[in-house]
């Protein structure tokens, strides 16, 4: 047996999104379940065959060919009429127009159409995320549930609701242009941003699936900018932001899966290639006069990874970027981060005032964040007893186990 035995990482997952997208173009969105069934069947045929015979020369083409034949069979059996199949004769369906759909260029195109379908404004953001992860990214219900820290039934419900909505929405599967694009692109960016954040910030224990979410978000963003009409500065900024964060993934957790604080991270573990890539994306991102929140967040993330030691962090510069950011978006998370920067600049009075001002706006399950930051403030002021008091409050308030552990560690360090 000399057949190649190495499969590209996530071949099936990525292929799933491509193939479902093509088949949905063929059948229409209303038959998305049929499309998904056909893709699944193609995969199982591949598993049964390749496991013994090794990989075919071009696995992707093999899968697509099988799916295409299954689709043609389906048409024949069910006498379905599609705009791609206007002639049906005794000798079989006209297959030439179908073939056109399976060209590389068309595959990319179909996938982008699918992404924009998932961004349909009639869907709420949490449904958009679940649907995108399933039909575009090829994640299973269980994998999505693990990644988003929800149970399978919740995810199933979200996806079913989203599909049902899109079926009644008289959906046009196309890449929006002009005004439509301007309206739809920010939603696509937001979904990608949220998928990344779910992977990067969630407190789930499954480190692998979380990192996969991060890289999936980056893959989706790259898919967008690969299209000539979608090379938008905001997406480049988002890509830069994600790379600046993702470069730190190897240093964030120790061997016992415990979170390592930013200041304690081993900077030699940071992925230099991703930092380089991030900078490349940022050059493209700044070719505009109008910066988005992604631009400023990327600028902040860049400032954090620039110095060789934590002590050399340029807090003044970071504060400037935060001031610009909160003018565009004054979410509590950004305001808290700005207060932290002020603490590092020894602006304790100002930071206290800022934290107090946010208190009203934070939901109960996020209050621990404020108290954890207050603890840092008093620690920096060398008022250790006060710092410990706030830490205890934060430990008491946080709903997350790993967060509790982290705060407890900090508390023990102070004692």
């Amino acid at each position, binding site marked *: *047996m000399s057949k190649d035995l190495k499969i590209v990482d996530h071949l*099936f*997952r990525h292929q799933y999104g491509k193939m479902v997208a093509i088949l949905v173009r063929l059948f229409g969105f209303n038959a998305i379940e049929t499309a998904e069934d056909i893709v699944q069947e193609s*995969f199982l045929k591949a598993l049964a065959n390749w496991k*013994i015979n090794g990989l075919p020369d071009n696995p992707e083409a093999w899968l697509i060919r099988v799916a295409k034949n299954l689709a043609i069979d389906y048409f024949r059996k069910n006498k379905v009429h599609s705009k791609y199949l206007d002639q049906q004769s005794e000798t079989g369906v006209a297959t030439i127009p179908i073939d056109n759909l399976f060209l590389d260029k068309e595959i990319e195109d179909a996938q982008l159409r699918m992404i924009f379908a998932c961004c349909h404004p009639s869907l709420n953001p949490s449904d958009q995320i679940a649907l995108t992860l399933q039909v575009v990214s*090829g*994640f*299973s219900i269980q994998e999505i549930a693990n990644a988003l820290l929800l149970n399978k039934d919740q995810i199933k419900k979200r996806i079913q609701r989203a599909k049902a909505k899109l079926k009644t929405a008289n959906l046009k599967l196309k890449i929006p242009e002009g005004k439509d694009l301007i309206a739809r692109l920010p939603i696509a960016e937001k979904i990608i941003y949220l998928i990344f954040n779910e992977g990067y910030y969630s407190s789930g224990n499954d480190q692998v699936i979380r990192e996969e979410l991060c890289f999936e978000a980056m893959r989706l963003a790259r898919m967008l900018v690969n299209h000539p009409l979608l090379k938008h500065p905001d997406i480049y900024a988002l890509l830069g932001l994600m790379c600046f964060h993702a470069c730190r993934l190897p240093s964030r957790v120790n061997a016992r899966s415990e979170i390592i604080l930013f200041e304690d991270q081993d900077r030699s573990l940071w992925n230099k290639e991703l930092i380089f890539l991030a900078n490349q994306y940022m050059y493209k991102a700044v070719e505009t006069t109008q910066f988005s929140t992604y631009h400023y967040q990327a600028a902040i993330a860049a400032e954090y990874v620039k110095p060789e030691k934590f002590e050399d962090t340029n807090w003044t510069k970071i504060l400037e970027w935060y001031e610009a950011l909160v003018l565009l978006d004054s979410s509590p998370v950004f305001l808290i981060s700005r207060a932290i920067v002020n603490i590092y600049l020894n602006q304790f009075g100002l930071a206290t005032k800022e934290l107090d001002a946010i208190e009203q706006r934070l939901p109960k399950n996020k209050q621990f964040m404020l108290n954890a930051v207050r603890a840092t403030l008093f620690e920096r002021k060398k008022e250790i007893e006060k710092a410990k008091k706030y830490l205890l409050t934060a430990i008491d308030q946080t709903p997350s186990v790993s967060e509790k552990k982290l705060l407890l560690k900090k508390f023990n360090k102070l004692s």
Partner: protein
Amino acid sequence: MKDFMLIFLGASYEELGFSPEQIQERMGRWFAWSEEMNAKGIEHTGHALNPTGRSISGPDKVISDGPFLEGKEIVGGYYIIKVKDYDAAVEIAKGFPEFDLGGTVEIREVMVFDN
């Protein structure tokens, strides 16, 4: 060296509901097994079988469509391997990647008639 046929029996994949990533992982296990045989210099060739088919049985030659028995016992494929004896064949068969799915390997020596 003798030829042994390893016959793979198990549930049809349709019933197991694999995700794309799980399919990839399954494939990886089979490839690892094949690599293991390659590393030991053990020749192995085989075929995969479609889960559906036809069967003919009885004096009346009754034809029926598969899937045949309970889903658990479908022949999914086989390898023919060249090894010294049954013990060596059993050692190799222990690497079969689908025991955790309730699969079975049947090991049969290929008969040889020396005139």
